[in-house]
């Protein structure tokens, strides 16, 4: 009787352990971290001069103010971002600068995006940077699906009286400490759009994820 009972108990213990182990492997995984382990690509940029000759043929001495004219700034360069094919397709974009600690500021909600307004404007030579949250307190946020973007995908930036189309060419997930902020926000001889969200595993000590997902897109010249 005693032996039998002990056997039963051992079986029960084994069973429970098995259930526990199964539960362990099936425990909810951090999806952002899993997905960011697999991202990254870079497409060789198309040579810039395929579009330039036309412009330069005209660039006789008198018209040489062209470079300056091109960099004219729009009153409101961006208030909406469209990423056809990935959800949400259309998001509002606010204009923000830096936080007290020197970080690029971000909206306090998971629906809006923010454009780093002290930096380059979309369409200006240089990298215009837009950031959005990957998740919020309830779950996926506006840039949850940013990893879904593929090379060649189009992103449309809408301002008050204009639309600019950008084509995705590079995606990388960079550890926070290795991110070259000056390059990501820096000058480029053609207009680029940079989208940023969090990726990698969550660092509980720092209170943020260990990496940033960075997507680069170049302006489609009409």
């Amino acid at each position: 009787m005693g032996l039998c009972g002990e056997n039963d108990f051992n079986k029960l213990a084994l069973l429970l352990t098995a259930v526990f182990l199964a539960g362990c492997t099936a425990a909810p995984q951090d999806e952002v971290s899993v997905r960011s382990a697999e991202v990254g690509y870079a497409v060789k940029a198309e040579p810039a001069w395929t579009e330039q000759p036309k412009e330069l043929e005209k660039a006789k001495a008198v018209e040489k103010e062209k470079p300056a004219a091109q960099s004219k700034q729009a009153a409101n360069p961006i208030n909406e971002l469209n990423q056809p094919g990935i959800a949400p397709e259309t998001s509002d974009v606010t204009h923000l600068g830096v936080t007290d600690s020197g970080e690029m500021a971000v909206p306090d909600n998971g629906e809006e995006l923010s454009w780093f307004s002290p930096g380059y404007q979309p369409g200006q030579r240089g990298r215009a940077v837009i950031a959005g949250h990957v998740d919020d307190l309830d779950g996926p946020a506006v840039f949850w699906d940013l990893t879904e973007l593929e090379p060649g995908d189009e992103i449309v930036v809408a301002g008050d009286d204009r639309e600019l189309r950008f084509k995705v060419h590079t995606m990388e997930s960079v550890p926070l400490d290795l991110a070259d902020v000056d390059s990501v926000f820096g000058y480029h001889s053609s207009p680029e759009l940079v989208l940023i969200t969090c990726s990698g595993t969550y660092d509980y000590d720092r209170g943020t994820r260990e990496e940033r997902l960075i997507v680069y897109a170049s302006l489609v010249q009409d």
Partner: protein
Amino acid sequence: MKKLSVSLVAMLVLFSLLASLVMADNHGDMAKVRVLHASPDAPAVDVYVNGDLTLEEVPFKTDSGYLEVPAGTHDVEVFAAGTEYAAGEGVLQADLEVEAGKAYTVAAANLLESIEFVVAEDSMEVTEGQAKIRVGHLSPDAPAVDVGIIGGDALFSGAEFPSITDYAEVDPGTYDLEIRLPDGTQVLPLEGTELAADTVYSVFAVNTVDSLEVIALVDYEAAASPDEMPTTGLGTPEQSQSMWLLIGGALFLVAASGLVWRKRFQ
């Protein structure tokens, strides 16, 4: 870069860990280089960097825009467009040394029979609110010239072929400039030249003297950047859940074995 990406594919398993490190690392060690075709009688050219076809069919008077290249020394070789590559056989070859974080203009200048590289470091900074400009004399048969305000002072004096002047900072605005001989004879008017604030320009005089013209390039436009990346996640993954499962599981095992022991000793 090609070799890098190939090896990255090979390391697919380690991709997330290594690739991001390598890529990020490289970013910090990159230089910017743009190529300018300023040889009036040369055909369109292909440019090979370290044996790789990097720029294809660059015609006269065009520039490549800035290309990101790793810091270090690179073998740059120029061929007439479409020519098959053979190391050392190009019309022009140079070992170009570039430093991280700097930008360079590499111009192919002079007539084809004596084609040569003219290399200059480009400025990636400008005093806030100011414009910055320099000129490059890349017209092989033009004499030494001044560039200045029509009826006014020279901004640049005695620029000779082949050379690129230092930069001069000026107030932003629209200037009536001219290229002129040191004696004041006008060579080419550049009226209504608009120089915007926080912007760096290079103006290259190209082609032969009888059809002299200029190419104006923007070297840099200033804009602010933050110190740190944004914190773009409001949520916190459920660390607690898996941790508690582990702790709970451990407690359960201890308790279970305790029960077994007790049973044995009974």
